[in-house]
């Protein structure tokens, strides 16, 4: 190996020493130890590289970038289908026959509310698009905003009227769900109301179940006729104060 070849290799050697164990550099480093001119060149090169790396290290990301990534990543994950080992085609093929048998059972099995909750969280995270209108919606919003209204009691919800007269509608699994934003003590919440009859196999209890996702929290329950999900982007404590 001549010095030109050694230089060609050594300029790929990271100045933080991470490559010390890499055999590719071994002979070139040994040669730099024996040849003073090459050794001096390598020392200069490393000092230069170290300085540039240090300068790059000084570049700070925008202050709000980390928080934005964490919040957005969680919403994305909530809406993302998971790909697991069993999604491999071979396993899928093997599972196909079993699936036929399971399908009959599953058709009658209660379904988890997680998907619905994730849907509500994702929608609440995009509140810039929210809004409704109409007298009935205003009254419903005022009732929810009233600190004296216990949310977990039997709320006088006129689903059909709210549905037809301006309440914001979102669709989950092909069914309409009402969404109303309300404010209590300066904190905004999002209330989602679905007819229980539209989701007959959704496993959901009458006692509010609390869940957290990043900084957001939600509570889901049923009053017998409706499924209610309330989302708070300001944390669990604020949500618990409603219940």
């Amino acid at each position, binding site marked *: 190996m001549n010095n030109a070849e050694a230089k*060609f*290799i050594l*300029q*790929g050697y*990271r*100045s*933080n020493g*991470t*490559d010390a164990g*890499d055999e590719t550099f071994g002979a070139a480093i040994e040669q730099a130890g024996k040849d003073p001119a090459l050794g001096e*060149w390598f020392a*200069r090169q490393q*000092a*230069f*590289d170290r*300085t*540039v*790396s240090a*300068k*790059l290290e*000084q*570049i*700070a*990301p*925008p202050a709000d*970038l*980390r928080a*934005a*990534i*964490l919040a*957005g*990543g*969680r919403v*994305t*994950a*909530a809406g*993302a289908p*998971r*790909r*697991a080992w069993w999604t491999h085609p071979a396993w899928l093929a093997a599972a196909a026959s079993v699936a036929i048998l399971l399908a009959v059972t599953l058709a009658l099995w209660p379904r988890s509310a*997680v998907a619905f909750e*994730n849907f509500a969280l994702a929608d609440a995270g995009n509140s810039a698009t929210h809004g409704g209108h109409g007298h009935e919606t205003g009254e419903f919003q005022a009732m929810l905003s009233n600190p004296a209204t216990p949310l977990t009691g039997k709320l006088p919800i006129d689903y059909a009227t709210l549905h037809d007269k301006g309440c914001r509608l979102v669709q989950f699994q092909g069914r309409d769900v009402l969404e109303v934003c309300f404010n209590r003590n300066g904190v905004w919440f999002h209330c989602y109301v679905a007819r229980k009859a539209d989701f007959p196999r959704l496993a959901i209890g009458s006692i509010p179940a609390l*869940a957290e*996702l*990043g900084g957001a929290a939600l509570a889901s329950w049923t009053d017998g006729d409706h499924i209610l999900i309330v989302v708070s982007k300001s944390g669990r404590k604020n949500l618990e104060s409603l219940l």
Partner: protein
Amino acid sequence: MRDMPSEMFTQLVDAHYAPLFRFALSLTKNPADAGDLTQQTFFIWAKQGHALREEGKAKSWLFTTLYREFLRGRRRAERVTALEDLGPVEADPPAPEVDLLTGLDANLVVQALQEVDEVYRTPLTLFYLQDLSYKEIAGMLEVPIGTVMSRLSRGKAQLRAALARKEAGARGKVVPFQTPDARKLS
């Protein structure tokens, strides 16, 4: 977080978002675009990357994804391949002394890096971020190891030249005379 451990995602973000942002900044030359690209990379991870079976490969995956997203968004310039045919690298072109370089503002160094042709800038930035080895950079860019070494060599030559220009510019910069007395006289 039910679909992905929240703690794991936070750890991943904390470990890599800053170097990813710096890499994105060198590619996009714009902090806002770099921020978007960094976010987009983590969102893709949140959607599909956490299915990676070897967590140790997360770093390479993130850098590779960010780079691919950058290329996808910009459409690869035809010039990239043409640059491979340039002549031999200038032997040790003039560069500012390390102590002068140390005194340069970090933003100026980044600007100099951004003046390096993209085909060299990408591996060079990854090299200086020190997160990936030359082998990992080769894997990410899907080029032979020798090509990475060659691009590092050319990239460093261009960086030295750009730094020398920045350093000369910073040294020759005239500072406006703005004392209160001067304002009175003008």
